[in-house]
């Protein structure tokens, strides 16, 4: 318990340092743009692939589990849309990004720590925590909602293609289903979750990397911890946010 509280305290203090006034906003802006490419644009590929197959599987599973004449077939489209919108595009994609982006951030910052590059920044009078972490947080907070949007669109397309190619649903029924009883608030809910998950993944992973002590072995451990802790926190906050936003 004491160890947990110590870690929590260190995390809060790190965030305080991260959100202090930047030395030169222009340099931070450049860094943020760089991180958007590195952490955001470079994730489009994996998000697209996963979302496509996720949508396809959801459609087929919904179809095979609702093979009953009482249920109209357009419900397959509706089920696909709501599953992707409410859960898969925000939470599952966040878990995938925790693996990709989280380990990347922790190992990058951790390596900088063990090779004294962070000390070099501090020696120059640069707020290393802010310089290294703030651009990553801002970049993911801005870019991850776009990834979420891409995931929603590609997921539904994946469902539509799988459903029509396998013959479980006609294209017209699928389109009708995804338009039926649409609640726009679900998109807002999904975006809110994505932004909070982005903050968790980036800040927790950066925290793990920033406080690495030792050598390459510890960097590897920090990277693993970053993925595990941010994934668990994403799942925990998924429950909290669902209760808060949908109840």
């Amino acid at each position, binding site marked *: 318990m004491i160890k947990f509280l110590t870690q929590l305290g260190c995390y809060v203090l790190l965030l305080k340092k991260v959100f202090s006034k930047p*030395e*030169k906003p222009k*340099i931070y802006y450049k860094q943020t743009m760089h991180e958007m490419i590195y952490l955001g644009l470079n994730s489009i590929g994996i998000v697209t692939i996963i979302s496509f197959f996720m949508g396809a599987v959801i459609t087929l599973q919904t179809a095979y589990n609702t093979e009953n004449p009482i249920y109209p077939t357009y419900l397959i489209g509706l089920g696909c849309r709501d599953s992707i919108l409410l859960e898969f595009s925000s939470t599952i994609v966040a878990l995938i990004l925790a693996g990709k982006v989280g380990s990347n951030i922790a190992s990058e910052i951790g*390596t*900088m720590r063990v*090779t*004294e*590059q962070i*000390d*070099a920044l*501090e*020696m*120059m*009078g*640069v*707020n290393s925590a802010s310089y290294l972490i703030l651009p990553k947080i801002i970049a993911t907070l801005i870019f991850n909602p776009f990834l979420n949007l891409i995931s929603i669109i590609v997921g539904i397309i994946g469902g539509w293609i799988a459903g029509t190619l396998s013959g479980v649903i006609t294209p017209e029924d699928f389109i009708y289903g995804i338009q039926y009883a649409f609640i726009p608030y679900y998109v807002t809910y999904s975006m809110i979750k994505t932004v909070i998950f982005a903050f968790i993944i980036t800040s927790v992973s950066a925290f793990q990397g920033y406080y690495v002590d030792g050598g390459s072995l510890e960097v590897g451990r920090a990277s693993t911890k970053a993925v595990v802790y941010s994934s668990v926190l994403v799942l925990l906050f998924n429950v909290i946010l669902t209760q808060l936003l949908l109840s």
Partner: protein
Amino acid sequence: MIRVNNLDKSFNGKKVLDNISVTFEAGKTNLIIGRSGSGKTVLIKSIAGLHEIDNGEIWFEDIHFNQLDFNSRKEIRKKMGMLFQGSALFDSLTVEQNIRFPLDMFTQQSAEEKIERINFCLNRVDIINANKLFPAELSGGMKKRVAIARAISLNPKYLFCDEPNSGLDPITAIMIDELIKELTEEYQMTTIVNTHDMNSVMKIGEKIVFIHEGVKCWEGTKEEILNSDCEILNDFVFANALAKQLKLSSK
């Protein structure tokens, strides 16, 4: 001038530095020597503010450095340059960008002025046609020289060098030592160099402090070091077979 009074530092209850008091003079190459694990790096990093000390005082001229808050320390840190043991160049930046970094961060210079300063610093450390190379493409000696160029880019008043010639061949090591000495005299910096290399001690040492197991055992000049009565220091200085032979023959 840097003054350290009664400095203590522990890690997880283990005392690493015990009651260190020493003054490092301006315009001189001050050396901290001692065996590996004696606390040299912790001392130099404590002085530079990279480690928080448990007790004691660190003064930069008349400024009580360890009592300053984070933002006030930043102002002093802009006057410091440090050469780290592993060079600590930023991997993702080229040689030119590494040296440009402090200029971008802390000066209002135009792009032309920055390029001029970068080339001046690189020429000063004898690095030519390497502006666009990444640290991974440089040799150990080149990395050290680029790190020196980065350290002097803002005309520092204080230069800290942590084992500047570790892992280098003897000729490159001497070149780095000479470069540090020349720059110290040229810019009248207060330079502190950590080393366990006796060649460096005899070549560039003006004031020498010997640390053993976290305790300052001896301080003096390179002339005095050869005739010291401190047994632990003698064991360290004359550990080398050739040095031992020289001492015996001089007797």
